[in-house]
């Protein structure tokens, strides 16, 4: 079943059309990977799934994006609620310059949770969920910025989990990380998909083939091909896909 469906979507930055007639179904409890060369519109699409591009001046969207059959761009849709449901992790780890605890508790507090016990429990659960509890449980007061890049990225994942989203968007979550941290995150993601629907942008073909269930290949703002990851990598239907995957460009 599709958690998100994108229908006939066109996106413009002022006059520049960054996405052309995109149609895509994002299945529940699976990992969907977006691949494609730089500038092809992967980030643009993933950002429109939680309306982060509302923040960009001059960005206009046509078409529909349905979350559980509901149009997230319809007029009185509360974007704060949307973003609570659709969490996001960015390319550069971006923890807030505050303690680990406050980082994780920020989201829940935003949504009105004040009770210390509930918060404590949520923080622990989220950190466990992001596979970093053991490393930081004795240092929750420590400033999150003092952690290593890989740890910071897991803190960001934990922070996203803490608002109990249904979907996790990840825009090249490992591109700033070393191989060992990358491996940890990949492992984590495959565990998380049991409870969350995951969309992940990656530059790394190997990563896409290692972790994702479904892959969409982008080129110049269009989706060239989508399908089961295994199929896309072993038996691409389009010439461009094959060229890209085999490293002939990009």
């Amino acid at each position, binding site marked *: 079943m599709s958690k998100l469906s994108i229908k006939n979507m066109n996106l413009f930055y002022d006059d520049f059309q960054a996405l052309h007639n995109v149609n895509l179904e994002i299945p529940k409890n699976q990992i969907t990977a977006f691949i494609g060369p730089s500038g092809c519109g992967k980030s643009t699409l993933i950002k429109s799934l*939680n309306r*982060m591009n509302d923040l960009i001046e001059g960005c206009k969207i046509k078409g529909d994006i349905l979350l559980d059959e509901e149009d997230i761009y319809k007029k009185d849709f509360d974007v704060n609620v949307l*973003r609570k449901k659709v969490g996001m992790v*960015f390319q550069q780890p971006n923890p807030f*310059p*505050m303690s680990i605890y406050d980082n994780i508790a920020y989201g829940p507090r935003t949504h009105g949770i004040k009770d210390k016990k509930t918060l404590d429990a949520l923080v622990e659960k989220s950190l466990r969920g992001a596979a970093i509890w053991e490393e930081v449980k004795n240092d929750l007061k420590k400033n999150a910025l003092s952690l290593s890049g890989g740890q910071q990225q897991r803190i*960001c994942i934990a922070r*996203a989990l803490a608002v109990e989203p249904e979907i996790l968007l990840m825009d090249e979550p490992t591109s700033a990380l070393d191989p060992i941290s990358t491996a940890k995150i990949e492992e984590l993601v495959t565990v998380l998909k049991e409870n969350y629907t995951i969309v992940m942008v990656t530059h790394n073909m190997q990563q896409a083939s290692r972790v994702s269930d479904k892959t969409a290949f982008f080129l110049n703002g269009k989706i060239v091909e989508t399908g089961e990851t295994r199929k896309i990598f072993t038996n691409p239907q389009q010439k461009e896909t094959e060229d890209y995957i085999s490293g002939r460009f990009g």
Partner: protein
Amino acid sequence: MASKLMRGLIYTAAALTFGSLFYIVLFILIKGIPFLTPEMFAWKYTTDNVSLMPSLITTLIVVGMTLLIATPIGVFTGFYLVEYAKKGNKAVGLIRIATDTLAAVPSIVYGLFGMLFFVTFLNFQYSVLAGVLTSTIMVLPLIIRSTEEALLSVNDSLREASFALGAGKLRTIFKVILPVAMPGILSGVILASGRVVGETAALLYTLGSSTNLPSGLFSSGRTLALHMYVLSSEGMHVNESYATGVVLILFVLIINGLSTFLSNRLTKGTK
């Protein structure tokens, strides 16, 4: 060769700059310290002791009140300009021009304006209120600018992270951005207090120069800089006015030290 010459020029310029600063400070200290007697700190001013205590306290009052009014207005203006205003917004252009112009207005013009508007037109008379409001307008651009800069220097990724968690703008500003921007804003505020402490021309025509401690918003007073000016102008207390100069310099040193200390402490957390 050209490199050596260039380096020579640069070092000379630096030596001139810091040499003159050192000379100025040393000069005032040497001239003033011998006259820094305990009577100068008597609670009440008399013509015998020419105490600077009332002016010291008035300075604190005027600076404190000015910051109390100017800081929120300035910081909020910064919020509006950086976090809310859309690019190319007409109001923003207008506000920018207004702040730029305010920043360039000479203090003597502020003084005349304060006299014509607050003292005479609004009939506040020579008073703490007139002085404070005049200096508020005077320091506003300092605070606005430093706030703007501080906010702009906050990484957008923090804003994104907060919005992505479903936080609204207000929460993002106060909980995430403000703490990071604090040192920058604070340094602007400190700069502003320095400006008020050192101001003479603008306060001369608004605050007046009473030697008493102000008894209310509508009573007159004098700040340290004014005290120094008035003391010297009749030629009877030139030494005491150097002594006041020493206190003034110490004041400024403490303010500066405090700002460095605070911003160091605050930045430590975020680095």
